[in-house]
């Protein structure tokens, strides 16, 4: 990866950005930065401030809280938003379990990004609602 066109194409194929027009996608591709992580590399660190919002483009990552794997993340999944929205350090490490490519938005830019892209905000809300529903189902 990835030329600007390739990033626009990759964004267009993700549910999160499914409602955006091509010029909007090009604008988003300019704001997001691509990062690559080797296997076992940490992406986000539990209890460290200043993290960002990550969208998985390729590969796989695990959420590890206090040494225990609590979730697996794959293409199209995103993470880091809860820590950014609440202004608190992450409650889990995110570790690449295969070589991982992500698109990254600095935490401080997330608020403006969500306000200026309501269709993406709606998709994120849907995903959070699904997580909440699943957690509620699991709880006794």
């Amino acid at each position, binding site marked *: *990866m*990835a*030329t*600007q*066109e390739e*990033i626009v194409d990759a964004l267009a194929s993700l549910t999160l950005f499914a409602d955006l*027009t*091509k*010029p*909007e996608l*090009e*604008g988003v*591709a*300019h*704001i997001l*930065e*691509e*990062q*690559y*992580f*080797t296997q076992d*590399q*940490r992406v986000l*660190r539990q*209890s*460290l*401030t*200043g*993290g*960002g919002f990550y969208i998985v483009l390729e590969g796989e990552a695990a959420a590890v809280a206090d040494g225990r794997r609590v979730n697996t993340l794959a293409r199209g999944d995103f993470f880091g938003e809860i820590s950014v929205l609440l202004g608190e*350090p992450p409650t889990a490490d995110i570790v690449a379990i295969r*070589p991982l*490519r992500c698109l*990254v*938005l*600095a*935490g*401080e*830019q997330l608020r403006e990004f969500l306000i200026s892209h309501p269709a993406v905000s709606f998709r994120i809300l849907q995903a959070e609602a699904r997580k909440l529903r699943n957690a509620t189902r699991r709880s006794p």
Partner: protein
Amino acid sequence: MTDTQPFQAGDYPVVVVGSGPGGLQISYSLTKLGVKHAVISADPAPGGMFRKWPFFQRLLSWTKPYAPWPHDAHEFARYDWNSLIADESTQRGLMTTIMDGSSYYPSRPEMERNLATFAERTGIQVRYGCTWESTKRDGDRFVLETTDGEYRCQVPIFAVGVAEPWKPSNIPGIEHAAHYADTRPAETYAGKRVFIIGKENSAFELATGFLPWARHIVLASPSPAKLSVNTHSLLGVRARYVQPYEDYVLGGGVVVLEASIEKIDRHDGILHVLTRASDGSGEMSFEVDDVIATTGFQPPIRDLPALGVATIGRNKLPAQTPFWESASLPGLYFGGTIHQASPGLKKHGLPSNSGGVNGHRFNGRVLARHIAQTHFSIDPARPVLKSGDVIPYLLREVTNAPELWHQKSYLARVILADPARGIVDDGILPLQHFLDSGGKDGVAATVEENAKGDLYPAMYVRRANETTEHLLPGHPLLDFQTTEHGKALAVALDGLFA
């Protein structure tokens, strides 16, 4: 004919490719550590991109002739972004000896002379006019095919810059746009209508240069212009180039648009640029005399992707580890401005300064030490500290160390509790390495900045492989050698070095 140049083709422990600031700093630092190496360069002389650019012949990075520290002190490098870093006090702050005093931004020729002077005075040898052409593996060796023959080595370091012009291929008619690299002398744009694709420093540099000449200037790209004074980093248009933006916001005639470029046509000698607004408000068409794409540069890394080097971003930079090793091809390293693709933590979204000489010159020293240690078992000196000296030393470092000020949240001073030797100064290391590698108990001290622009020391304390973050208070004069900071640091260390 006798070959009078150094480093004939052959087998070397390390081969450094490039003679810009990155290659020169790494070669100097390897020599100081006793790592034998060859340096080859396609150029005829030292200087790298500064032999040609910036286009308008004036740098963006300053050197203050008068600063709180003398030129021969290591600490002076905080105020001097352009001199390479020397162990000998006599070779420090060389840029100050070359500038003519007309600006604290050196001219391009002054920067070129600064680098050549460093190479000459420190005895850096380079085989010039030797072009690296292709690469292969042969057992445990990397083999670099060049115009002067085959260079084999255990460790190659590619410090080849990020200066290969790049234009997007998905804009119909992009061939009608000149690249930044092909911009003509400013006076040839007298009375012309100029459309600049891009809104980063190179776009605003050209727009600034065209202000006295062009009839109409348009800058367009899909995302808004960022200004460094707002981002608190080198991400964004530098203050030196903000003039066209001020012209735009005051209605002076310059146009700054958030739009994608749909196509470029030429009819009867006139260029027609069709844009589509990023906010969906529709298309606009511009009739102009010149279109210039300031769409960036790529590193000329030739066949390295085919060899297994993963790349990232629209500039196709090689993905790297915290020690600037290819993230996908171990044993192969990068130097100089390519280090910008080893992002570090990017806390609060703030990038390192590895894309500039001010940042990557320090990486170069750390890289040389890492290669000496991991590939050639050469251990650098690690001074031992007394328990009572740790806090004053760390506070002095976070107040004065140029590594920590130019590479915030990226490089750190590391002190370890070594059961065998006592309290050991482990030197300057990538912060990310300290956080993720585990190891002896210790502390990594760095300078950080939050989103509001507050600057403060940050201490990362590792005990039994658990690391905790301690953000110390700021100070209006950025002097962290206060009683308050001493107390806060003692709390953070909590008897670690007692």
